[in-house]
């Protein structure tokens, strides 16, 4: 599945200072849909090159990291249960670095 992932607010430093990643994520075996939970684990294994604790805490993002799915706060779409579709845009912004 083609997705655009964007990292900002300092999170890009965890993935080699690249802010926008056009990626292809496979559905987990046997699954029919890709959820944000799947995407987060994909991102941690494939994109985050250092200090993973700055991005994840437990199975979700670290408190203080904003997540937008198609420009919409993921709190409104079910957070980890949000299902993703082809060409979706997911933005991660850290609010923890500098004002």
């Amino acid at each position: 599945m083609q997705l655009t992932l964007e990292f900002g607010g300092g999170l890009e430093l965890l993935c080699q200072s690249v802010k926008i990643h056009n990626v292809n994520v496979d559905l987990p075996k046997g699954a029919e849909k890709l959820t944000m939970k799947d995407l987060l684990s994909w991102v941690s294994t494939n994109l985050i090159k250092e200090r993973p604790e700055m991005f994840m805490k437990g199975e979700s993002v670290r408190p203080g990291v904003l997540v937008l799915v198609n420009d919409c706060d993921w709190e409104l779409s079910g957070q980890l249960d949000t299902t993703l579709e082809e060409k979706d845009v997911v933005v991660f912004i850290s609010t923890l670095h500098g004002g």
Partner: protein
Amino acid sequence: MEAGTKPKISGARLCCCCNQRRAALKRPKTLEQICRECFYEVFEEEIHQVIVENQLFKPGERIAIGASGGKDSTVLAYVLSELNRRHNYGLDLFLLSVDEGITGYRDDSLETVKRNELQYGLPLKIVSYKDLYGWTMDEIVKMIGLKNNCTFCGVFRRQALDRGAALLKVDKVATGHNADDIAETVLLNILRDWVDALQLLLVKMDLFLDANLLSIYSPNAYRGFAREFIKDLERLRPRAILDIIKSGENFRISASTKMPEQGTCERCGYISSQKWCKACVLLEGLNRGLPKLGIGRSRGLNSDVKKDVKQDSGTKSIESKQCGSLDF
């Protein structure tokens, strides 16, 4: 950001204000689901209300906006210039940036501030540590080595905006802070009071303690923890951050009623409870080639401790941020 127009099925709820556009966020303050446009509108109008109710400005005033290039000061620059136009405050606004004189350090943020200058049509004034103190941070580090420069950057940074403002003859300085940072500062101040009290108690009990032992309780050591604690709380209860700030305000009001009169520095006129302010003591040392002057281990065993505690509570503010994070 060019996002797809197609909303998530479960997220396709409409904005509770306009009932037309789809909601883009949930306001932690009210838990309302609101669209981007309406959010900007309520956000800006709430700030306007605060400005009017508290009579923060008078027409004709010259206001410096502390500009670090970070998100908080960028939002402030935008909102103030917009409200000034929209509601005819009649303010003479400009951006004020401080350049510490650390090679390469400010390059990115000064770029951002220059963009703000163009975008919001606000003139930019940059004051350097050289202008303010006669020394750049690089020169100070060269003089004293890296080891002690934290004393300098803490003290100098805390005063820089005020001194820059005085230099440029402004009536007021506006600085932008987000709720997370303020709530964190409130918590840190409470923790610091506890540590100060603990320290006093130990001194009274004649317990000799190595300064290092207590330094693990320094604000820098528990800062990371406080931030995480706050964001965890927010997850459980979205209003928690605003409630912490509110309790901090009540705290400050009750504390300020018995605060001693603040004097001013005999040398530079900056507020100080001592004859000379901390910056002037440090500068005197630098200029006389005795940079260790004024640094020393102030957590001594005698009455110094009491003095120190008092002085600390006077300078505690949102501005007292950790070393290395140079935003305000």
